[in-house]
């Protein structure tokens, strides 16, 4: 297996209650099944444009999603379906947006790479590498300034650690002690290039933490419990004025970079090894080990499947967006006029 071997072992049940554990299970499942559906939909040519799945990386979005306060803020990337859903955004809205329908979260104007649901604290998906790190810092600044104890959580990939905005955002957040958590999902690849081929250090985020006077944190990003615990710990600290954290979560994407990518650049067997460590598979096994009943898990699986089916139908039933939308919302007045 490429990258660091993640640490093993379940947390003592006492630390994370079984309600939380079921929530983590359910959420991972929601993300997985919804994205698998997205994949089916573009095979059916119902999703145009591009689309970046995070199949295999669900434990990270879910671990944070469950740990966050409803008024916390998420900032994520073009690979942001999971992170947006994890804040409670509607599946219909997500699938609808991917399909370019009226019911889409963004009315079809943003597309797959820009999912946003401000009402749920999902403050946007950003498609140009690096930009959302300083933006997340800014949200954290606003929380700090107003004393609201909200936290901004910013997800990004390993490849993102080599762009200038990463550096600026980290330094800036530390000197202002901002309540922002930077979460690097190290899935070992940029688009098609292994991160190790283009990075001066082994752990692209964690090995740079010291450059910002931050603690070095590497976690198993396929273990929802570990993510949840880490999220809780650093978010609590941030709420109390302890400043930012930089977390590197080791994981792997099961699919290609985007719909166009068959991912043939991967060494033979790599995917298979990581499938063994599929976050949902290991979490399910852990729940059973910890004494949860199979039927409970089955029920959840059925519920989520039904939920995804329903969302799919609703999205399919939605019309193409009205052309009027083209000239709406450039400006706060609702319009697009640049002249009188």
């Amino acid at each position, binding site marked *: 297996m490429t990258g660091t071997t993640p640490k093993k072992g379940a947390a003592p049940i006492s630390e994370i209650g079984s309600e939380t554990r079921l929530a983590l299970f359910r959420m991972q499942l929601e993300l997985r099944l919804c994205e698998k559906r997205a994949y089916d939909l573009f095979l059916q040519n119902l999703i145009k444009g591009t689309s970046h799945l995070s199949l295999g990386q669900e434990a990270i979005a879910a671990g944070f999603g469950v740990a966050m306060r409803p008024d916390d*803020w998420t*900032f994520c990337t073009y690979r942001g379906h999971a992170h947006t859903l994890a804040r409670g955004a509607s599946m219909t809205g997500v699938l609808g947006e991917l399909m370019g329908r009226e019911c889409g*979260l*963004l*009315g079809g*104007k*943003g597309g797959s790479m*820009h999912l*946003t*649901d*401000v*009402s749920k604290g999902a*403050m*946007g998906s*950003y498609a*140009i590498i*690096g*930009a*959302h*790190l*300083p*933006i*997340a*810092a*800014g*949200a*954290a*600044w*606003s*929380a700090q*300034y*107003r004393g609201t104890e909200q936290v*901004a959580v910013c997800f990004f990939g390993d490849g993102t650690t080599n762009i*200038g*905005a990463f550096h*600026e*955002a980290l*330094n*800036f957040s530390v*000197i*202002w002690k901002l309540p922002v958590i930077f979460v690097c999902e190290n899935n070992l690849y940029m688009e098609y290039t292994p991160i190790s081929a283009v990075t001066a250090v082994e752990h692209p985020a964690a090995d740079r933490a010291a450059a910002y006077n931050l603690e070095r944190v590497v976690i198993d990003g396929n273990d929802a419990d570990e993510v949840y615990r880490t999220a809780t710990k650093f978010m609590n600290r941030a709420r109390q004025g302890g400043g930012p954290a930089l977390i590197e979560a080791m994981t792997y994407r099961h699919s290609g970079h985007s719909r166009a990518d068959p991912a043939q650049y991967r060494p033979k067997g790599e995917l298979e090894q990581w499938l063994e460590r599929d976050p949902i598979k290991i979490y399910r096994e852990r729940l059973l080990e910890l004494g949860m009943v199979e039927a409970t898990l089955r029920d959840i699986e059925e519920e989520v499947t039904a939920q995804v089916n329903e969302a799919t139908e609703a999205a399919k039933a939605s019309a193409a967006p009205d052309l009027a*939308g083209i000239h*709406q*919302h*450039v*400006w*706060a*007045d*609702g319009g*697009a*006029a*640049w*002249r*009188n």
Partner: protein
Amino acid sequence: MAELTYREAVAAGIAQEMARDDRVVFLGEDVAHAGGVFKATVGLLDQFGPLRVRDCPISEQAILGAAMGAAMTGLRPIAEIMFSDFLAVCWDIVANEIAKSRYMTNGQVSVPLVIRTANGGGSRFGAQHSQSVENWAMAIPGIKVVAPAFPADVKGLLAASIRDEDPVLFFEQKSLYSFKGEVPDGEYVDELGKARVLRQGKDCTIVALALMVHRALEAAEILEREHGISCTVVDVRSLVPLDTVTILAEVARTGRLVTIEENPRLCGWGAEIASIIADECFWELDGPIIRITTPHIPLPSADRLEDNTIPSVARIVQEISQRID
């Protein structure tokens, strides 16, 4: 009315809005303790304290990114980019993030912020500290673009920009910072998107911005006195929104358009206005549209060279007197 310099009007505009609205915060490099390299923000730190007036590292992407994130979540930041040339190092945040977020999210996200920056030449600073990049900004959908020529407009338009729900790129003219003018006392807020007719003539309409407004006015005096050519001078004040009603009306009245642009020639704001006139005002035109611009070159540094690139009063007089009768 008090007489203020252009730079004092900047501080006055910011102070007025910070006093009125707690959500207004101000950040930039060397802006707090030092009061800005152009001394345009002296006194703000003392008046509003270090939580609202903040010095930043040399991290323009972080500065504008932070301003954006804060604006999205309820604050109304004013961010300074020291020289407008440096917008290039954070252009992604301006052009791709701040400008597009409202639209891409179908109206969910608001980014009410102001980016103030020192624009333009005349200080012998050379090609990387003297550019006029108002046309870069005008080319980006989703951002308003303001460039005042007078201290009163600095205060009034800056206040209006801070209150605006949309992002505004506010170009301050470097070589006007010590220019003095009357500024209304007390709360003063102007309106974005209104050009101002500073002088009316019958032979030609000169449309200008920022420093070029002053040169246009001076040239118009000379043209009247020495060449018998009577010019209207329109101060555009805001490129976006653009007051095409005023411009179209004035050009229709005189039958001729001359734009005076400090930006280098190609794709300058004057080209946009020329193209609007050449379409919508074509039948009222009595002769060619003339653009007087900085040539399409990086700006040279030596005084003699610089003085011969940015449109001067003499060049404006010469061009217009030769081509308009």
